[in-house]
């Protein structure tokens, strides 16, 4: 049992080592708070591992050999990281936090923090104790991973029923291959060991959200918005459901946050990091490709509007394309298509979805009262919407909303809305961005404007 827990810890820390080394080597001018750097490193490390498994599998290597190669690389990375520990320590900064003087505010902070910790504890327990049981979670993600793991290879034979994991072969492989990594480390297929990555992503989401909002917000308001985010019912459900939407939500939020950090701190390396994270979001789910492209485009439009555009800002787009190229070429070679979003592109007009979406935003428990808060905040702080970097956040949100709206209003994909199988999950991927944006609108900085 002890060995089992050690394996779990190793499976989670392995990606962090890869991620930390990547940050230290390629993004050495970036600064993070202590917890934030681990969250970003985990997110990058998991992508490095899934990407490496995918690329090595193209050579038809047995997964046991791939695992040996990864272990060797991990050992090398660990040694390199130890040697560079001082340089890495230099990238960690301490955020100045001023606790409120009012004792009631302190009590409120403690209560909310305990609540958030309780949520994390609950999600971890849910993930740990429940098997993978949702139909989509099994068919779309876990069955793929289990087939790869038990057959010791990523099946690339198109004639085989096990081609790319049987079901939906055109889905990106980040999550299945990450689950393969978990299984390889533990040494057997065990649902609890596989699902543990989800509470970890949830934790990482809260960390990058909180520590970045804290740069603009007071402690108490940051905690309130962290509380809002961490108790969104559908997000909590997905955090233990073994489904890729939580991961996509994390990567999209991180992409926008680090574009924003680049703008506020005038540091180009944040843009590179955002480009990498955008590529990973496309490697997580198909719609991630469109959403991350929209976010990159919003960034470029913001620069043009603010007359700050320079060709060096194309770099994140280039990074995005270069990192994604192997997967896109692979898709093209195997003619994988775009799967579930392939209801056809015949233009039409489907206004009936507006009332459906409206009723789901305000008639379900999925978002607590978030969309009401969002609406009231936009009206209340209408003069702040376009100030400073808020314009970039607004462009990103409008871009993503607009993309979905055009997709469902004008194409036969509208039927997926009426069937109720996409809209809430689509929203899940951008809700964290909207919470952060409203958090910025509430910032004290604007009181002086």
């Amino acid at each position: 049992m002890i060995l089992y827990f050690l394996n779990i810890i190793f499976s989670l820390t392995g990606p962090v080592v890869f991620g930390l080394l990547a940050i230290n080597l390629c993004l050495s001018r970036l600064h993070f708070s202590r917890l934030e750097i681990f969250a970003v490193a985990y997110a990058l490390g998991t992508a490095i591992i899934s990407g490496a498994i995918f690329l090595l599998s193209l050579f038809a290597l047995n997964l046991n050999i791939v695992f040996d190669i990864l272990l060797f690389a991990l050992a090398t990375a660990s040694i390199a990281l130890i040697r560079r520990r001082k340089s890495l320590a230099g990238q960690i900064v301490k955020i100045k936090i001023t606790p409120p003087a009012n004792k009631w505010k302190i009590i409120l902070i403690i209560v909310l923090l305990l609540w958030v910790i309780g949520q994390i504890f609950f999600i971890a327990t849910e993930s740990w104790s429940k098997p993978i049981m949702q139909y989509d979670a099994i068919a779309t993600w876990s069955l793929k991973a289990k087939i790869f793991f038990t057959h010791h290879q990523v099946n690339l034979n198109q004639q085989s029923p096990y081609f790319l994991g049987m079901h939906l072969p055109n889905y990106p492989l980040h999550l299945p291959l990450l689950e393969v990594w978990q299984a390889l480390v533990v040494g057997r297929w065990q649902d609890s060991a596989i699902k543990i990555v989800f509470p970890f992503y949830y934790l990482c989401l809260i960390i990058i959200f909180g520590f970045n909002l804290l740069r603009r917000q007071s402690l108490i308001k940051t905690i309130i918005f962290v509380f809002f985010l961490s108790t969104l019912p559908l997000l909590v459900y997905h955090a233990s459901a073994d489904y890729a939407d939580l991961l996509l939500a994390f990567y999209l939020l991180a992409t926008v946050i680090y574009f924003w950090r680049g703008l506020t701190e005038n540091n180009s390396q944040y843009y590179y990091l955002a480009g990498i994270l955008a590529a990973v979001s496309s490697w997580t789910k198909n719609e991630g490709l469109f959403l991350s492209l929209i976010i990159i485009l919003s960034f470029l439009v913001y620069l043009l509007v603010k007359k700050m555009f320079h060709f060096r800002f194309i770099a994140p787009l280039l990074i995005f394309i270069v990192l994604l190229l192997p997967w896109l070429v692979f898709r093209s070679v195997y003619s994988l298509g775009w799967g579930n979003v392939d209801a056809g592109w015949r233009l039409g007009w489907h206004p009936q979805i507006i009332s459906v979406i409206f009723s789901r935003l305000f008639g379900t428990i999925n978002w607590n009262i978030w969309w009401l808060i969002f609406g009231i905040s936009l009206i209340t702080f209408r003069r702040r919407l376009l100030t400073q970097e808020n314009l970039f956040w607004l462009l990103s949100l409008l871009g993503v909303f607009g993309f979905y709206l055009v997709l469902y209003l004008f194409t036969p994909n509208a039927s997926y809305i009426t069937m109720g199988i996409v809209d809430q999950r689509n929203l899940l991927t951008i809700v964290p961005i909207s919470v952060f944006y409203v958090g910025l609108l509430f910032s004290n900085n604007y009181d002086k404007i």
Partner: protein
Amino acid sequence: MHRRIILLFLITGSLLFCKSALAATEKFYCDFNNHRVFNCQKSVFTATAQPLNIREKDGSTIYITPQAQLGLDGNQYKILTLRAKAKTNSPRFKINFSDRQIGILSISNFIFRNNNQFIDYYFNLSLSDQWGGTIDRLYLQFVPQDLEIESFVVSPATPILVTKSLWQEFWAQRSEHLAGINGLNSPLLNGIPFIKYFFVVILIAVIVLAAVKYRDRGLAKNWSKVLLIIFLISWLMVAIRTSYGNYSIYFNNYLSRSGQPNGNSEKIIGDLVGSPELAKNLYSFLGNIRNSIPSGTTIFIPPDSGYTYILMVYNLVDRYQIVADINQADYLISFDQLLPASAQDFKLKFSFTPNQLIYQR
């Protein structure tokens, strides 16, 4: 006179018996070949081609049976065999009949890719509460870019098409379970989602305070703080309910299972579907399969309408070669599932109650 009456009763009875026997074997058959209906009448198969009634709605196509008065007995005709070619990975379609809707079915549940061939998919229509009574007209709605349909057949439940009610309870629960990923159901208060009451109260509070703000300078100055306090209090009131639900699940269920983090699948699936007996049966059957069939052999699991199938594949794929074509299989297993007609090539090897069968070629 009495003899004549008795004879009349006997003849009527015989006719009724023959009719019911006939109805049990006939098929209602619609063949959509090149957008023409060739056979679409109950028990009378005409060779005359009739134009297919096609409509469009929401960007999808609807095939409608031309006969307005089919008179199909829903209590007898339960099995839909859809012969279709999936063009995308997750095509869905709707079956409407008369003025009722059976709901959205998906052939994505049949997880084998079809290699661009027409495949028969079996659906047990009686698993829907809506199915039954006299069916006057059938509609099939789908997105043509997703799905190409060659034919669909509605036939009575026959002995080879095993249908039991065991999974009905499971399916009833499944709709709620599926709602989990795609959205959570809000508890109702007087028939209205309780969250809507919060929306109304918060809106009224904000509007009233916003009106007061114009006269009260102090309120205007601290407006963002006031808003945040209103939001926080409202949020807490909803979150208390959802979090209480979460923690009660935890304390009621999981603490009692401490020390067995991965051995409780059966219990949790049982909780999920609201039928511990069902989950117990499924997991015992999976164990029986592992004990009865040597590893590495090829097995065919009849593709039913979803969850049973995917759970079995997920639990058996590490040990067996699961094939899409029944002709390639050494074994055929059925957990209360519909069996295709070609199952007659197999012999029953093991039978576990209730209705858990292992066939060998």
